[in-house]
């Protein structure tokens, strides 16, 4: 009986999870391996003698060097970082106040406002970039980092607002009432009690917002023209695919270096991030 159960656990639990992990991690592995393989291996056919299609026999840094020396990758990385951080901060601040207001304050039209904010999040960027391009041109922000710092919040604020609204709702309102009796104003109670308690939620909203702006493609493609203003996702694709030639090694090196900062950010806050998404607050 016990043996049968063990057998079942393997089939129903370990095997599917192993397949799932393999499936999820394989692209990352492929990216890393490709970044460190010499061109001779990359473009060799699998049938060639001594072929090692799934790993490399002669690891090399030539693609990383090439990427850093022949393209403006460090500038793209810096641009992406700056734009992601600034737009995340703007969106978090707006999202915290808006989320709090929608979760706690009862005012006329609050429900409508909540829904309206959500709907703006649902409008696809592929449509929204057309009117936004017009606005950016009128404001003469095209080809400057501000074009992205100010347009990313258009989808980040609704996202942060909704995530934080949900989190604020899990915080017992008595905490805030108690603070108000203790001598805090509503604003004071929000800043001194609710925000510190909501740190896991705020962090996970921040991480999500950071990742979304880090990965954003279409606005960056449309609003940024010159090579030194590009972000990593756009820069890598537009500079390393020339015509029908794909510089696979450098492309993958760019992808690898581009995903490292995000992975680092995640790993620092992973605990907060999990409680932010799943946990609630107990008083």
């Amino acid at each position, binding site marked *: 009986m016990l043996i049968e159960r063990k057998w079942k656990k393997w089939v129903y639990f370990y095997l599917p999870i192993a397949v799932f992990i393999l499936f999820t991690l394989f692209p990352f592995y492929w990216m890393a391996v490709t970044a460190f393989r010499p061109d001779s291996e990359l473009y060799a056919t699998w049938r060639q003698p001594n072929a090692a299609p799934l790993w490399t026999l002669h690891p090399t840094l030539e693609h990383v060097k090439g990427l850093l020396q022949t393209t403006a990758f460090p500038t793209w990385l810096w641009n992406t970082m700056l734009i992601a951080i600034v737009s995340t901060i703007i969106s978090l601040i707006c999202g915290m106040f808006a989320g709090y207001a929608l979760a706690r304050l009862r005012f006329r039209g609050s429900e409508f406002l909540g829904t309206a904010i959500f709907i703006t999040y649902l409008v696809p960027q592929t449509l929204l970039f057309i009117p936004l391009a017009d606005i950016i041109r009128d404001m003469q922000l095209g080809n400057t980092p501000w074009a992205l710092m100010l347009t990313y919040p258009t989808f980040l604020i609704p996202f942060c607002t909704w995530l934080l609204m949900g989190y604020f709702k899990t915080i017992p309102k*008595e905490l805030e009432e108690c603070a108000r*009796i*203790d001598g805090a*104003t509503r604003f004071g109670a929000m800043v001194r*009690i609710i925000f510190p*308690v909501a740190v896991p939620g705020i962090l996970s909203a921040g991480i999500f917002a950071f990742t979304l702006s880090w990965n954003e493609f279409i606005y960056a493609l449309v609003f940024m023209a010159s090579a030194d203003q590009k972000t990593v996702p756009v820069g890598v694709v537009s500079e390393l695919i020339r015509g029908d030639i794909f510089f696979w090694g450098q492309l993958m090196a760019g992808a690898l270096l581009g995903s490292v900062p995000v992975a680092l950010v995640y790993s620092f806050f992973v605990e907060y991030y999990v409680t932010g998404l799943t946990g609630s607050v107990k008083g």
Partner: protein
Amino acid sequence: MADVSIRALNKKYDNGFHAVKDVNLEIRDKEFLVLVGPSGCGKTTTLRMVAGLEEITSGEIRIGEEVVNDLPPMDRNIAMVFQNYALYPHKTVFDNMAFGLQMRGYPKDEVKKRVQEAAEILGIEPLLERKPRQLSGGQRQRVAVGRAIVRHPEVFLFDEPLSNLDAKLRVQMRVELKRLHERLETTAIYVTHDQVEAMTLGDRVVVMKDGRVQQVGEPLELYGRPANRFVAGFIGSPAMNFVEVSISGSGDALWAETQGLRVRVPQGFSGKVQSGQRLTLGVRPEALRLANGADEHTFATAVDVVEPLGNEILLNFRAGGVPMVARVDPGVRVKPHENIHLALDPQRLHFFDAKTEAAI
């Protein structure tokens, strides 16, 4: 120290729900007043309006000499203990208790002194550096009380503070709260749905139902002379037995009758009760006992369930078609389904108008 006066207080929500209707209460200085009633009776809403957490639709609330209708909670000099304790989870016990004082700009030494003092009173000194999540339910409760007493407020407000504790701890904390109130001599308003808590803690008890005050009085007054059928049924456990009766007879010899039950109306009610009236007869379980030959107000019935509780025995039976309970001496030996004769104590009968439910 202050008295609290509530006049013609009303609360109507935007959705039209009238939660509190014309409540008038005078709470004396140093008094422990308990608001009790079933859920949705408006007791918590009333308390929250005193705290300033809920807007007043109409009426007036005074704390001391001052009308506080439009004052924010922080300016009312009150402290409140919440049902879920509402401890700040990111602050230590010390900081939880000190927060109110810090917000009011007390110097550091004074804050420390007061927190120490309160912690001593409540026996939570060893916990001052802990976070709320490291405390047991009872300890959290004490911290919540401590946070209220450090400020030396004029009025304490308690919103069902014991209902999250287990039964044994609840009894213990109840006594501690009573002791604390005697020591601090501060006016307190306490909300609960538990009538035992209300009776044991309150100097006076306010029974509420559907947003209205049903009766205000000292615990024994509510028990002995309930103003209406609701109060009679709410206060006391097991609850008072009610049976619909019709009055017959004439002059001094009036009888309250229903199927299987016929008792003589005690002298005290003559003049208030007339023949032909339909009334509700109320009998407390302890006003019933096994009859001996000499009793006048007796009736026969069959016991269906016997509940031996040790210090008393509860006999469940039916009379006049309704289930009733008698509380009898633990020495009594009665078996289920046995036929018995029960006697009513004529001094402890209650009659209520069948329509208005007011006591007669």
